[in-house]
């Protein structure tokens, strides 16, 4: 099984980098959860080491570096869209006529790596008017609450943003 226990096959520099990033991340997380009292580290240190080990074990084979600038641009974009998603649902739920025209739409993904695709699928469910209902052979089935909404262009825009987050460019996606 080449996919499992993939960290063993990494070059040592990449492995060391990944190890240090995870150790730092889980240490900060422990501080957040348990506070700064050093006595907590009696439990904290083994937990951090175990978490780092598990995280490396399940790390994807190909490194997927996140661009910091891309992340800074992605967060406001995402917060803005999910806010309008909430407003959209609120309007439809509270309106006496309950305006909606639901249907299924397919979208062909061009993002190459699994972590990027997972992020895209999860973000679609928080966009205005769309939830991702299935993913099979690079094709996302999207349920839209209103078929008159520009679903394809919204998802395509999101896909380009996700690609920018990982510092890559995508050609383009088909409906």
């Amino acid at each position, binding site marked *: 099984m080449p996919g499992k226990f993939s960290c063993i096959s990494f070059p040592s520099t990449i492995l060391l980098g990944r190890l240090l990033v995870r150790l730092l991340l889980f240490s900060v997380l422990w501080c957040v959860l348990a*506070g700064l009292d050093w006595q907590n580290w009696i439990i904290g240190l083994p937990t951090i080491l175990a978490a780092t080990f598990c995280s490396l074990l399940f790390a994807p084979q190909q490194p997927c570096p996140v661009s910091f600038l891309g992340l800074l641009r992605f967060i406001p974009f995402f917060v803005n869209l999910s*806010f309008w998603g909430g407003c959209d*649902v609120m309007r439809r739920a509270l309106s006496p006529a*309950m305006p909606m025209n*639901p249907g299924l739409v397919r979208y062909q993904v061009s993002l190459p790596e699994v972590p990027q695709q997972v992020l895209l699928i999860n973000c679609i469910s928080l966009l205005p008017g769309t939830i991702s209902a299935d993913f099979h052979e690079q094709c996302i089935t999207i349920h839209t*609450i209103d078929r008159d909404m520009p679903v394809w262009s919204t998802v395509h825009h999101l896909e380009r943003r996700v690609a920018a987050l990982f510092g890559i460019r995508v050609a383009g996606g088909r409906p």
Partner: protein
Amino acid sequence: MAFLHNLGTICILIGIPFFVSGTIGLLRFPDIYTRLHALTKADNVGLGFVVLGLALQAEQWNTVARLLLIWLLVLVASSASCHLVARAALRKKIQPWSRS
């Protein structure tokens, strides 16, 4: 501090209608897919405002970080479970409700 406290209260009050409309949507919407729309989106925005409000009222930095962490985990959990519920429904051949 009173200013931040009041601002936090306003944020929490903004968040509550989103939770309420998510629940109203859950009760009113016609099928499983549209109900998922109501739950994931409205509740996430509602929780976002409540977390923001509580973070503004928090007295320690790690309370703020813990609240943000809760929000992030709920975001991930709700969008992933939304996808899984919708996928299970599609694979059981449950047809989406349509206007016509």
